[in-house]
């Protein structure tokens, strides 16, 4: 199963290495990773896409929580969060199909950032379904390059995810 985990960490050097090291040492797979500062500059948020069964996910969360620099770990539940990813795509064009490509992009609602005679560069944001759809739409024309940010996610609860520290384990 695909999961989206949000991790609040100390905004310190070496933290990314601790997290990625943990994943590789324990054989957990990361499918995407995005890191950035939060509203509190001493805290960074990592949004990690992982795949695994419930038991693996449980271990991932527990092992992440064991890291001293990890302040909070949340596994987002379906329907309770929004997620977005930004992609840049470079598509090949010819004089012949140029119009068709431009129309496809426009109808999709992606933004054209640069239109050359041999290629067009596009920016699009969306959830995973939307990004996938865009890439499928463009594939027949010939995709020259794809750059993805990795997805970021936020819960839709009324309160923010705050770095107030680790909760007591209630077991």
């Amino acid at each position, binding site marked *: 199963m695909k999961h989206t985990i949000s991790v609040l*960490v*100390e905004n310190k050097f*070496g933290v990314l*290495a*601790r997290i990625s*090291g*943990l994943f590789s*040492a324990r054989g957990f797979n990361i499918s995407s990773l995005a890191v950035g500062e939060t509203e509190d500059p001493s805290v960074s948020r990592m949004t990690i896409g992982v795949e695994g069964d419930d*038991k693996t996910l*449980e*271990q991932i969360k*527990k*092992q992440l*929580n*064991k*890291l*001293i*620099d*990890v*302040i909070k770990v949340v596994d987002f539940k379906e329907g309770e969060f929004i997620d977005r990813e930004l992609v840049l795509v470079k598509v090949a064009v010819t004089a012949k199909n140029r119009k068709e490509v431009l129309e496809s992009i426009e109808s999709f609602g992606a933004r054209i950032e640069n239109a050359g005679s041999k290629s067009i560069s596009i920016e699009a944001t969306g959830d995973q379904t939307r990004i996938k759809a865009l890439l499928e739409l463009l594939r027949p024309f010939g995709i020259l390059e794809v750059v993805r940010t990795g997805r970021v996610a936020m819960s839709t609860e009324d309160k923010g995810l705050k*770095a*107030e*520290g*680790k909760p*007591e*384990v*209630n*077991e």
Partner: protein
Amino acid sequence: MKMTGAQILIESLRKEGVEIIFGYPGGQVLPIFDKLYDAPIKLILTRHEQAAAHAADGYARATGKVGVCLATSGPGATNLVTGIATAYMDSVPMVAITGQVKSFLIGNDAFQEADITGITRPITKHNYLVEDIKDLTRIIKEAFHIASTGRPGPVLIDFPSDIQMKEAEFVYPEKIDIRGYKPTYEGHPGQIKRAAKVISESRRPILYVGGGAISSEASEEVYELAVKNDIPVTTTLLGLGVFPQDNKLSLGMLGMHGTAYANHSIMGSDLIIAVGARFDDRVTGKLDEFAPQAKVIHIDIDPASVSKSVAVDVPIVGDAKAILKKLNKLIKKPDTKEWIKKVEDWKDKHPLKFKDDDKVRPQYILQEIYKATKGDAIICTEVGQHQMWAAQFYKFMKPRTMISSGGLGTMGYGFPAAIGAQIGKPKATVFDIAGDGSIQMNIQELATAVINKLPVKVAIFNNCYLGMVRQWQELFYKKRYSYTCLGAGCPDFIKLAESYGAIGIRVTKKSEVRPAIDRALEINNTVFIDFHIEKEENVFPMVPAGEAINKMLDGGLA
């Protein structure tokens, strides 16, 4: 008062109550060593940094205090790595301090530079690089706190030499607040109630106790739980000593080389009460067939250990001592009469056995060491057959008397650990149960032992083999003894000991065993006893790798 970084380190260590550190000098720790020259903290100079780490570990396990080791940058730091990994696997509180090249040279492949925080990230509970003299006291305070609380473990502080010379005001912080580190101690009251109910209703309960109960100082509580309710107790290798082995409820160690009756009992139980143990693969054997009828209560301070391999019915995260105290008040004594009878029956039918003839059998030596010391010694071990015989045939009576590398299985651990233990417990009788292979991995520490007048008794179980590996080759690789014979090239351990100023005793006959032990106990100096044991003796019972733990080979002894 203004002080240099090096001085602040020493003062901070004193604030943490450190009296002894184990270490080795080098270019990037010169400022620290200069301050140590006339400091009230004593440094034990080992002859290899690996030994400094193991000695700090042995000191910590024997005393319960944080062990401290110190090494220079680069090769000094990398030599600590095996010792740090050993401490990490066995959850031993340790602070390792390494010198680092000057901060402005870091990343330049400077002379004796190694990225030791990178190297030790997966084998430390946490680590630090000191980047600013202003952070130093906070880092030291946090390091000791993290190493010794929650599930203990090693913490490394990498300390660039230019910052050792920078000056700052010395103010040791009073308080600690690490928002990402809040171990749970108390245990959830609802879960404790549930556990009490499950225990009260059980008919075939067994206590399975590990090293966590020793770090938590919970042996009295374990004793009360077992004895008041008539529940048999088995322990892991690291749990040996938490429950007195002369008690009739004691089943000794379980697992791959555990007693048959411990393995049968856990397999036949209807309830496993796990305390500070982690269902390691050496304990469970084939996981699918492990204790099929048993419910599991798991008490552990590390949430990540709970439900990691074995599914748990009642998890209780917290400090074993605190939880057992509360739990003990709530239990209604279960009816275990039939069960105890059954367990007694297993004990009668499948006792630990060996051929007690007129040869020098390793098991006999351990029984004699037990008798001679009345179970009152600290037994450190190396890794191999001798380690397993020690676990089987010495009766451990008190916590912190079994000191062995369980998780990592580090050959060369025992001798330096014994040095650390003897320094931490100067009055104790300390043995290192060694193999001829393992002892040669840190034999240079004879110098450290002799110079510090440490009466450590090293009992070498000399079988001229890497015996444990040879045993596997005998049983599973058609006796093809590929590179496991150490006979050729084996030193004369007596002369070797004597050349360092230690005493050597050689034993080649059974009749010499006990007199040699008694003599060693009288000698106030480091002693090597070179026991020439039966060369191809095997450790039984044995569960072949990947088998269920009640499918033991008995070696034809039963």
